[in-house]
Structure formats: C-alpha cells, structure tokens
C-alpha cells in the first residue's frame, strides 16, 4: 500500500509544479464583474453560468444576477453565459491587469427549456460539444407540479429510451432499463452517481433467515428509493456505452447522474412545502368462479369436480356458476384508501465565499392494503390483538436531512461538501409469490364465500383461499434504514488553463430487515409456523469513491481549442451482513433468543474497481467538436488470467448551422449533427471467477458436524462484458426556438456477454458457471420534440412528445444451448428472455354447445394448438411514447398539465390468471358463460397435452394517463398578503388516473418481480398500481 500511495502522491506533486506558474501570473491579472439580466423583464437572472471560454474559469450568478471572476490573465477573452431556459450568449472583453472589467448580459428566454450544460465524467461541459445524446430532468421544476412520490416517479417517462417499472406497494423499488437489455445473465440496471460519487443502488434489498420465505414474496426495497426527490436539483441520464465509457466497467447499462441542490449566494431563502393526499386502488380485478354440478348418477349438486372441460365431455352436468369478486365486496376487500403526507423545509443562502443549502423533510405514506372489515369485527369481538402491521401492513416513514456547503477558498480553489442523512422505516405485506402472502389467498379462493374454514384453526374463509388477511398480516415484514451519504470535492485551478479536481465520498447504509410472528399467530402454513418466528438481518453497505483528475485547456493556432483530461477513479463496494433468527418462540416473546430453533448466517460481498482515463477534446471554431478517450479498468472480480480492460471512445459534434455557407429556411435556427462511438462494460460478480467451497453443518449419526462442499467452479478466464455502441443523431431548433427536435439512432453490441451457463446435472457440480460466451445486440431510435406553441404574457402552451424503440437480439450464445425457462427463453436470434410457447392457433365450437372442449380425437377437438414451441413476443415493451401537454392561463399563473404514456410491442405474462385456472377459479375453466378466448386459454394450459401457456401471454400495450396536475401560482403581492411569503403556489395532482389496454389481467405494468434481477417480469397474484391524488403547497420566504 505505501508503494501505491507513493505513486499516487507523485500525481499531486506534479500538479504542484504548476504553482510557480500561478505566482508568475498573479502580477498580470485582473477581474471581471458580470451582470446577467432577463432581456424582457430586466430582472436579474440567478444561477446563470458564466464561463471564460477556453479556460477553466467559470462561476454561477447569485440572486442579484451578478458574479465576479478574479485572477483573470490580462488580455482579450470571450465570455459565455449559459442558463437553462435562456438562449446562450457570448461577448468579448479585455482584461487589464489590476483592474476590474464589467460586462452586462441581457439574455433572452428560450421557448424550450433545454439544459445547456451537462455533467460528464470529465466535469461540466456544454451540451452542444457532446457527441452523444443526454437526457436531463429538471427535478426541482418537475416536483413543483407533478405527483412525484419517489425517485422512480421522477424518472418515469421523462426521458426517451429509459423505461421505468415500479413495484406496486408503497416503498418498493423499480426496474430501470436504458436502451434495452445488454446482458443475458448479469444485471441490466444502470449505475447511479450522486454528487460525483457512486451511489448504492442495490435491488431486492430485503431478506431474513426466518419468516415466510425470508422475503416479501414480491417486490422489495431498492436503495435508490431511499433518496428524497426534493433534495435533487437535476438528473442526467447517460444512456449508453458511447457516452458512458469514462464511467468504466459497470456503466454499459447507462449512468444516472444525480446532482443535489446547492446553496446560492444571497440572503437566506426559505422554501416550505407541504403535501397531503390519498391513495386509491382503482384497478380491475378478476372474478372467481365455481361450477356447481353433478357427476352421472349423482343427485346432489356440488362444486369441486365440475369444470367446463368435464361439462363438455359429459363427465359432469353443470347446474350453475357462482362468482365472487373479493375486491368489489366492501366487507371482504383487503383494500382501503391510503394516505400520504410530506412536510419539507429548505433554506439556501450565503456569500460568494460560502454558500449553504439545508433541507429537512418528513414523509409518511400508508399504502392501500388494509385489514378487511369482516376481520376487524372478528378481531374486535374475540378480543384478538390488532397490531399496526396487521391493520395496515404497507407503510413508509422517511426522514431526511441534507446539508450542502460550497466554499470559494480563493479564486483558484473552491471546495464543496454534501451530506445527506436518511432514516427510513417501512413495512411490506407478504404478497404474490409467498405461500403465506395475500395474493395467494385473495386471488385463489372459489366463487363463493361459503368455502369452509381455515385448516386447523377454524376461522371462516369468506372466499379467501386457505387463510384470511389477518393471518397473513400477523407477520411483520419490516425494514429500517439509516443512511449517510457524503462527498467532498475540491476544484483547484492553478492556472487559467489547468483545473484539477478531487472527489472523495462514501455512501453508507445501515439496513435492518426484520420479521416477527408471535407464537400462536399467523397462518397454519406448516406445523411450526404458528409457533412463532423472529428474524433480524443487519447489513452494512459501504460504497467508497475516490475520483481525481485534471484538465488542461489550450488553444492551437487561432481556431482550435484543445482540452486534455486525465483522471483516476477508485470504487470500493462492501456489503456485510449478519443474520440471526429463530422459530418456535416462547409465548409473548419477540426476542430471537427465546426461539428453540436458532438460525444464524453471515454474508460478505466485496468488489473493487480501479480505473484510469485520458480524454482529448478538440474544438474547431466553436462549432466542430471532436473527442477521443480511453479508459483502463481493473477489477477484483476479473479472473486471474485477465488483468485489465481498455474501453475506447470517440465522438464528433458539428454545429453545422454556424457555418457561413449554411443555407436553410429562415424558420430553422440551429442544426447540430452528432456521432459517437464508445465502449463500456459490466463486471461479473465478486466471486464469479473463483473456485471455492462453502461451509455448513449437518447431522451425521446424530451428531452435528462441520461440512465443506464445493460451491462454485469458478472461471479463471472471466472478464467483463464489453458493450460497444455507435450513436448518431441531430438536433434542430426552429421557429425562434419554439420547437426543438432531437433524434437519435443507436446500435450497440455486447461482446463477451456473460452467460450463466447452465451445467448439465451429470457434472455433479453447481448449477451454473459464468462464462464469456455470447453477444447481444440492441438497436433503436429515440425522438424528442419539445414545442412552445404559445408563449404570451397571458397564455402559454407547450407540448412535448418523445418516443423510443429498441430492438433487442441475442446474436450468439457461444456454445451454449438456449437458456430455457418455463415461459421465457434466451435463444440466439431472439430477444433476451422472450416469451415462448406452443401457439394457440384458434378454436371452434364444433358441437355448438357454447363450450370449448379438448378431445384427443382431432375431429372433435375444439382448441387448436401448434406443434412447435415458437417465439411469441417481447416480455417487456420495446416501444414507448410520452405526450406531455401544458396550458397556462391568467398571466400564466394557472397551469394545467398532463402526461400520457404509451408502451407496447410486447406481451405481458398474466401469471395470475394461469394460477387461478389451476386453483381452479378462473372464468375460462369455471364460468359457463366465459368468452371463448378464456376457455381456449385454459384448455390449452390445463387439458391439452401441449400444456401451453400461450393464452396467458396477453397484449401488453397500453396508454396511461400517468400524471395530471393543476397549479396556481399566486402573485408575489398576494403571496405576501395571504401568508407573508415571497412566493406561493398550490398544486392539485393525480398519478395513474386512467388506463387503456387490451391486456386481460389487472395491469400490464403490474409485476411481482419488478425489482428482481430477471428480465421477464410478469403479473403474479399482485395488487395493481394505485392512483395518487395529492395536494401540494409551495411557499417561499
């Protein structure tokens, strides 16, 4: 280690060589005072970024629209001002040694808000200089009006090519895919960087060693969900390897850059937000059906034996069908109105030397799941305990505290410190794939409430399958998070042409998962379940980042500006957990130590990455921008035979409309073409390269003995996946900036794709081995059209349309055969995790009995199934489009906005209906008036020898009114008069208001495994996404 630090310190030493140069320059420097105002209103423009072109010097304006740049070399300079919502402006100025020059900018608003500066791995950069597309979300602006409850709400449908699917319970995480799926076997989630450091973004973050399966049975927490959206200034999404090269190994799935709010110089400005609202489940849920009938010779009708197939074959004579929809019965439903409250206070201010931002927030949300009325009455009448998690099993309570400081130590050195403490307590309902969960009971019962009592307990079932919600929700499934994220950054500009930075930070999460079931409570899942259980899983997650670099800017001849950047980055990830649990607790005890069967476990994951990069950028006459770079990475997870990986990139951006010879119709204001190529990777898991054993214990001849068992074959040749992407596109601004079109085409191929190769059982070894075998291709297009159709003083109207398509194909699986699951397959020539089945080719009610029946005799058979298993469709939507519409009235104080979202081109696996048909209670099996499509689906799955699930692969396309809001902004005078505030606005918003789809299940976005690592999400006994109705007040002081 000392040797390492000696080498690295040499880096710093070299930089200090530049110091004499600084001192030499100080004698010939001057200052520049810049004032930026709005050209129309003449008001000061805050947070405009003022740059000295060709240097590392730049700073934002304060609330008075002013900023002073100091220690500028004497001579003539070009000054550029950039501000979101305004057109870029440049001016020339001459700096005289020892004097302060002044410059005033009156910048005009741009009709369409585009972020002029973006964050890159080498620092902030003008958007026009980049050769690749970036997506930017102005979080602060979105939050003012949109019903955003989580970070995933903030991302959802706001960037073309970025698909977000969220778990349906309060507090569950999301599945995020950027430009499709690159990897067959590794995670396809993007990485997250917050204020320059790697943010922990692990998915499915919940487990215990006891309890019903040790998980929630469905979606779990995601660590990205811990972050409060209100703390965020903006989010940038780096979409593919062509842009993410310098983020190194792990960035091939995209990078999400989060920048939190910073202080702005000036008097303290307070911002207070209050939010309250209701959460309602307005989804469609299917009916349960039962057939009552008699077998030949029987005289008494009963349910159980009869179904449509048996009626069709004459094995049963149907008398009637009964139906029940628990969700529609106010006495039985496990759904009620949830609620949400949030109170946040933020203050920002300071001087040019020291700026601060402080934010504190308290958020509470109670989901829609609620103990049914019939249960509450029973509990009340019997005097049974009603615990909070039994009454309302799904809830979230989050408190966050943020302090960000920015200090300008001197004109050449500024430092920043960001800190964020999060305390989160949440609990979930066992759902979906937990045998003890709600979904299995509420979707699985018969078409009648008269279905007996709970086994061994005797409580009436009232239409639930095996037990009622009181029993399911007797078990607490909770998680507590204490998280502290900090980063410190120093920017040192020893000369006008050289800037250096160093960022050090850490994201620490202390996570405690717990489950608790008191003795004598809970479902009779097994003989010991009701003897109680307690589990605690304490996990420490540490994500340490160190990022250093330097950028030199210099000119060549008169027309070339060059910029050279070198950098190094270290990421150290450590996840260490210790689990303890026990079952068969003492009566009344909630202590692990009281259990008679103790379970303990320990787990550690460590992964380290060290990368270096160098980038060379050349700008020609401020219109043609060329960039080339290379990054080298080493990672602790690489195989011993593989040392490091190199990722190259190159890009060009051409602002062609700046050329003198450019001729175009007058309505076209600017045109830019861009192209980029780059590579990036995804690293294997920490131990994937190793051959190793695991230890355990077993009873041998009545004595517990330690055991050692081979746990992994390892692969000494393992290396990261390498994704290479070509991206090209153009941007056109038209009609005085009222219309902006941004189009992108990309094609990326992932080589050395890591495939979890299924090993033949006859190996007698582990189930799979990670190998670099395959290749995956993603190609697609993205289009964004932003328009400001009306921009008057009284009335404003903007429409933004964006869309994307992605074609995903496994090019090769190496020597591996297709990876075959029950419903999805990964086959060369087809998408990853595509849906495959023997197709239902049609049906015909040949005997006109109103029923479809399977007969082995093809002349009588009424449901026709293809012979071969074939590809049936994408498991996730390859197409998406979003339409946002904003209308402003009354001096633009009143704003209506809506967001419609389309996704399609896929099939969604209705696994809920599949298992309902085996319960059996689905319409296609038990409803005498069922539609033929439902009957055919059931026949194909449960009666025909093919046993095909094709009918459950249903059209996944939908249009959703995802967001709508009405905002009224009071005039400053009225705000002051009413609440003595500087500003006041009120917002009424709704989320998930309306769904249009041909999907036959609950919701084509409803997935029980959304937060899992797989890429074949499906609805499975899942309660659908709820609707939010939120009222928000924004106050400024």
């Amino acid at each position, binding site marked *: 280690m000392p040797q390492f630090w000696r080498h690295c310190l040499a880096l710093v030493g070299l930089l200090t*060589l530049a110091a004499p140069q600084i001192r030499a320059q100080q004698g010939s420097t001057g200052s520049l005072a810049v004032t930026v105002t709005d050209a129309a209103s003449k008001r000061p423009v805050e947070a405009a970024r003022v740059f000295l072109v060709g240097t590392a010097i730049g700073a934002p304006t304060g609330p008075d629209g002013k900023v002073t740049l100091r220690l500028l070399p004497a001579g003539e300079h070009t000054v550029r001002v950039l501000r979101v919502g305004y057109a870029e402006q440049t001016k020339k100025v001459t700096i005289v040694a020892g004097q302060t020059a002044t410059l005033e900018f009156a910048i005009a608003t741009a009709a369409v808000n585009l972020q002029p500066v973006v964050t890159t791995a080498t620092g902030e950069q003008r958007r026009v200089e980049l050769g690749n597309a970036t997506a930017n979300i102005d979080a602060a602006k979105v939050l003012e009006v949109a019903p955003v409850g989580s970070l995933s709400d903030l991302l959802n449908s706001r960037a073309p090519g970025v698909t977000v699917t969220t778990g349906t319970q309060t507090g569950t995480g999301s599945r995020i895919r950027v430009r499709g799926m690159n990897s067959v076997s590794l995670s396809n989630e993007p990485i997250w960087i917050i204020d320059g450091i790697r943010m922990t973004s692990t998915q499915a973050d919940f487990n215990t060693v006891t309890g019903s399966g040790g998980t929630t049975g469905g979606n779990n927490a995601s660590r990205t969900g811990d972050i409060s959206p209100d703390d965020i200034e903006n989010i940038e999404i780096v979409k593919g390897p062509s842009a993410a090269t310098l983020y190194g190994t792990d960035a091939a799935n995209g990078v999400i850059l989060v920048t939190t709010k910073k202080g702005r110089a000036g008097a303290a400005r307070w911002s207070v937000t209050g939010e309250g609202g209701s959460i309602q489940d307005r989804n469609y849920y299917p009916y349960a059906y039962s057939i009552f009938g008699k077998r030949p010779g029987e005289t008494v009708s009963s349910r159980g034996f009869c179904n449509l197939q048996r009626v069709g074959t004459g094995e049963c004579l149907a008398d009637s069908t009964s139906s029940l929809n628990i969700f529609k019965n106010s006495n039985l439903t496990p759904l009620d109105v949830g609620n949400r409250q949030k109170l946040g206070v933020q203050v920002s201010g300071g001087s040019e030397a020291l700026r601060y931002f402080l934010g504190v927030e308290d958020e509470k949300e109670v989901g829609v799941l609620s103990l049914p009325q019939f249960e509450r009455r029973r509990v009340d009448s019997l005097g049974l305990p009603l615990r909070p998690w039994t009454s309302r099993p799904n809830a979230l309570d989050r408190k966050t505290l943020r302090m960000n400081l920015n200090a300008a130590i001197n004109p050449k050195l500024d430092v920043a410190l960001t800190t964020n403490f999060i305390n989160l307590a949440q609990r979930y309902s066992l759902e979906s794939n937990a045998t003890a969960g709600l979904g299995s009971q509420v979707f*699985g019962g018969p078409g009648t409430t008269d279905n007996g009592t709970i*086994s061994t307990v005797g409580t009436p079932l009232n239409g639930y399958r095996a037990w009622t919600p009181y029993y399911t929700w007797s078990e607490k499934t909770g998680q507590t998070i204490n998280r502290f994220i900090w980063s410190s950054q120093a920017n040192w500009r020893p000369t006008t042409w050289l800037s250096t930075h160093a960022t050090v930070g850490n994201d620490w999460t202390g996570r405690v998962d717990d489950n608790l079931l008191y003795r004598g409570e809970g479902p009779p899942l097994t*003989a010991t379940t009701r003897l109680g259980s307690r589990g605690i899983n304490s996990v420490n997650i540490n994500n340490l980042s160190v990022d250093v670099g330097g950028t030199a800017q*210099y000119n060549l001849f008169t027309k070339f500006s060059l910029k050279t950047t070198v950098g190094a980055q270290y990421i150290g990830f450590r996840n260490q957990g210790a689990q303890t649990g026990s079952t068969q607790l003492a009566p009344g005890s909630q202590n692990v130590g009281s259990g008679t069967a103790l379970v303990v476990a320990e787990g550690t994951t460590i992964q380290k990455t060290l990368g270096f990069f*160098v980038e060379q950028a050349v700008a020609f006459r401020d219109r043609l921008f060329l960039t080339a770079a290379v990054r080298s990475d080493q990672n602790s997870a690489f195989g011993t035979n593989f040392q490091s990986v190199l990722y190259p990139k190159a890009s060009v951006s051409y602002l062609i409309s700046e050329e003198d010879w450019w001729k175009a119709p007058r309505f076209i204001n600017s045109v830019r073409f861009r192209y980029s190529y780059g590579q990036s990777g995804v690293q294997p898991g920490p131990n994937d390269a190793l051959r190793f054993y695991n230890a355990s214990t077993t009873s041998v001849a009545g004595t517990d003995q330690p055991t*050692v068992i081979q746990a992994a074959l390892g692969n000494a040749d393992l290396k990261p996946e390498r994704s290479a992407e070509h991206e090209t596109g153009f941007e056109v601004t038209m009609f005085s900036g009222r219309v902006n079109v941004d189009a992108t085409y990309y094609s990326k191929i992932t080589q050395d794709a890591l495939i979890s190769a299924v090993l033949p059982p006859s190996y*007698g070894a582990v189930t799979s081995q990670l190998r670099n075998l395959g290749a995956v291709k993603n190609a697609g297009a993205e289009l964004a059209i932003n328009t400001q159709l009306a921009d008057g003083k009284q009335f404003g109207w903007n429409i933004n349309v964006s869309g994307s398509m992605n074609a995903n194909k496994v090019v090769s699986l190496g020597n591996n055969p297709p990876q075959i699951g029950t419903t999805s397959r990964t086959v060369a020539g087809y998408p990853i995790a595509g849906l495959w089945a023997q197709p239902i080719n049609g049906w015909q009610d040949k005997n006109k009995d109103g029923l479809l029946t399977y007969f082995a005799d093809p002349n009588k058979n009424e449901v026709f199934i293809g012979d071969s298993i074939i590809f049936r469709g994408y498991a996730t939507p390859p197409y998406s489009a979003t339409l946002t519409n904003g209308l402003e009235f009354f001096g633009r104080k009143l704003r209506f906005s809506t967001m419609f979202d389309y996704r399609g081109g896929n099939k969604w696996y209705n696994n809920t209906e599949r298992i309902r048909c085996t319960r059996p209670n689905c319409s296609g099996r038990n409803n005498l008036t069922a539609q033929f499509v439902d009957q055919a689906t059931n026949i194909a799955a449960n*009666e025909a020898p093919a046993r095909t699930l094709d009918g459950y692969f249903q059209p996944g396309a939908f249009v959703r009114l995802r967001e709508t809001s009405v905002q009224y902004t009071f005039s400053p005078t009225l705000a002051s008069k009413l609440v003595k505030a500087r500003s006041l606005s009120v917002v009424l918003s709704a989320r998930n208001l309306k769904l249009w789809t041909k999907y036959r299940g609950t919701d084509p976005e409803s997935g029980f495994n959304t937060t899992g690592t797989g890429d074949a999400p499906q609805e499975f006994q899942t309660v659908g996404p709820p609707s939010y109705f939120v009222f928000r007040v924004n106050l400024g002081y």
Partner: protein
Amino acid sequence: MTNKHTTGRLLSPKRIGAAVVFSLTLSSVACQSANDRLLQVTDPDIINPSDVLSSDAANALAFGAISTFKTITGGGESTWMFGGLLADEWSTSSTFIQNDETDQRLIQENNATVTGELRNLYRTRQRANESIVALNKVNPNSRALIAEMYLARGFAELQLASDFCNGIPISNVYSADPTYTSPQTTAVVFGYAAASLDTAINYANGTDAQSVLINRAARVSRGRVALALGDFANAASFVAAVPTSFAYQHTFSLATTTNTLWGQGLSSRRYSVGDSLEGNKRDILVANVIPFASAKDPRLPVTIPTTGAINGQDGLTYTRTTTMWGQVTSVDVANGVDARMIEAEVALKAGNTASWLSIHNTLRATPPKLGDIQPTGLAPLVDPGTPEARTSLQFREKAFWTFSRGERLGDMRRLIKQYGRTELNTFPQGVHYKGGSYGKDVNLPVSFDERNNPNFKGCIDRAP
C-alpha cells in the same frame, strides 16, 4: 480575434500543460503497479481449494458428501417423494404444478423439482468421489468413512437407475474437473451401483461398529441392485447376514436440516398419503393403486379428514397425513426389513412359497419400528394361492414396509420388466382429481438441463 497574450495561447502553459498531462498519464500507469494489492479482496464467506487439503478438511468434505447424500433420501424433496408421487405412495395437495404433473404422470422435461432431485443425485456421486480421493490421500486408514462414501455413490446410482428413464449420462471414472459423459441404460447404471457397493463392502471389512454398519448398509443396497438386475440368485446372499433390527440412518437436527418427509407431508401438507379413492368426497376411483390411506395398516397410520378442517397447501384437498415422521425423525436408508423383503422375493421367485410366507409372517409378528411408529403385531398372511396374487401380495407388503423410502417406483417398474405386468395394470389409471386423466409416465425424465451435455439428446426411451 485574439492576440498572443490571450489565455491558452501562451507557449509556456501549453508546454507545461502537455508535460503535466504526460506526467499524469505516466504516474497513473505507475499507480497500476500497486493495483494488485489495492484490488485484493478477501471474502470471509468462501473456502479456497488450498484450504481443504488437511485431514480435518477431508473429513469435512466427507461430511459434506453425507450432507448431500441426505438430500436424496429424507433430507430433501428427493425422488423418495417424487417417485412416490409418480407411483402410488403420495398424491399431490400442493399448489406446485411440478408436483401436480408428476402425480398426473405427465412430467415435463423441464420440471424444476425433478431437475433439482437429479442434480442432487449426481452431486452425491461427485462429492463422494471427491471425498474418496481426499480421504485416501490424508486419511487412508478411515476405511469405514471411505466405505460410506462408496455407499453414498452406489446408493445414488441405485436411485438414479430405479427412478429415471433409460439414457442417464454417467461414467464410473471420476474426474475432479467435471466432464461430459454419455447416456447409459438403467441396466448399465445398476451395474455401476453394483461396482460401487461392492467396493464399499470391501472397504468396510473391519469389526468395529461403524465398519459393520456400513458393510450391512452396502450389502442391503447391493441386494436391491441384484434384484433390479434380475440376479435373484445372488440377491439373497448379499443380505443373509443382515439382522432384521439393523438400520443405517440419516439423522436430522433443528440446528441443521430437518426431516423433509415430515416437512413436505405432515407439516406443509403438500403431499397426501396415496389412496385408491381420491377427491374430497372420496368418489374418484384410481385403478391399480395400493390404498395406503384407507387400508388402515398399522405400519402406516393415516388420518383421513372428511371436512376441510385439514386442507392441503393448495387450500382445496382434504389431505391425508401420517405421523410416521416428526421434525427430526431419522430415516432408514437401508435396514433389516429391506433385507427380509429381498429374501422373501427371492424365495417367491424360486417358488418356495412356504419360506416366502414365513419370512413375511415372522416380520409381521414382531414388526420393527418404522420412523416414529411402532406397529402392533400383524395377523399372519395367508397364501393367496396363485403366483400372480402372491406377486401382488409380495409387492404390497414391501410397499407398506418401505413406504416413501424410494423403493416403490423401482418396484412398480420391475413388476412390468420382470413379472410381465403392464403399465395399464400397474400404474395409477383414470380421472385425476385435479383435472384431466392420468398420463403414461412410468419414470422420471432426465431433465432438460442435461441437454447442455452435447452427448445427451433426451431419454433413450421412457420404457419401464
């Protein structure tokens, strides 16, 4: 326009800049020399191969092999249970389609549970082999333990051949690095089992209790293999010296693993004791099967609910449960009853009806403990009078003595192969209470995952 004093055009800064950038690059490269140490990771969860070379480690490897061995008997959802579903010992009362289709005799090649069971059978072999190498290297005098490893290997081969189709990829040459093997008929695999068990018998030649225990277990298993191969003449000789009271057991504890026959049966109620009358109203007649539940045999006490007071895990099926096993009840992998059943069948095959009846009636008079059940004395059997009926009685008796111990499916297959029965008069037939009718499967398929072995193209056939 800029002049020569303009920022960035100064010659000196440019040169210095280039020098600094160059230096930074060089320094970065120099940093890499320390990278190996910086990137070094020690994961406390794993044990490296270099750590399993000691005498203690060899023993731990052997215990690991025994741990895996247990997963193919009563310590996992093994073919002891799934074979019983496919045969007539168990009926499904779970929500799992894998269980339902096995009970319905319509098993898909990608049945995930069968795949897991198959993997565990192979793993038992591989881990036993690995342990044999390690023990011979550092603990060559642990002959009983080495013999137990051969027993584990042979027993896994016996179970593979008893339960799976023709076309089981396997080799009797051990390789530390797994290799692709070629599909073999069940007869060949029984041959491998015979070889493994013969070696176990040879190794367990001491007079200490452990050697005697393993020797007897290997002899009983070898006798079963001989029956499967039709070697009736030698089958009885293997078990002649094995006392009826003998049992080689797999044991369980709350701190490690518990009894899965209890866990999946009585505890979770995913399996219901098989019967000839299915359906909650007990009005669906299943042909050919032994009425394990309604026979009221003291060797297999069964609770038959008539209401939904004890439903299965599926929430529908009135589940027939047995208290034969508790949470940590040991299971007999091989025992003296097995020995007597082998002797009885050999006697019957030889036409020695008196001896055959005597063996059975001796056992019935003083039945040994079965799991947690100590059966009362059973009335003596009476010769049913015909060879066909005697064969049926032999296999019925054996089915009760060996309930859910992985023998019934193999015996039903032998009824077809060695006694002239057919699938139609041996395996369950008729309407299945969960829908549809029973299919045609008489064995478990080698799973789809095996197609990753280029030598394997599926079962050679699904014949008994």
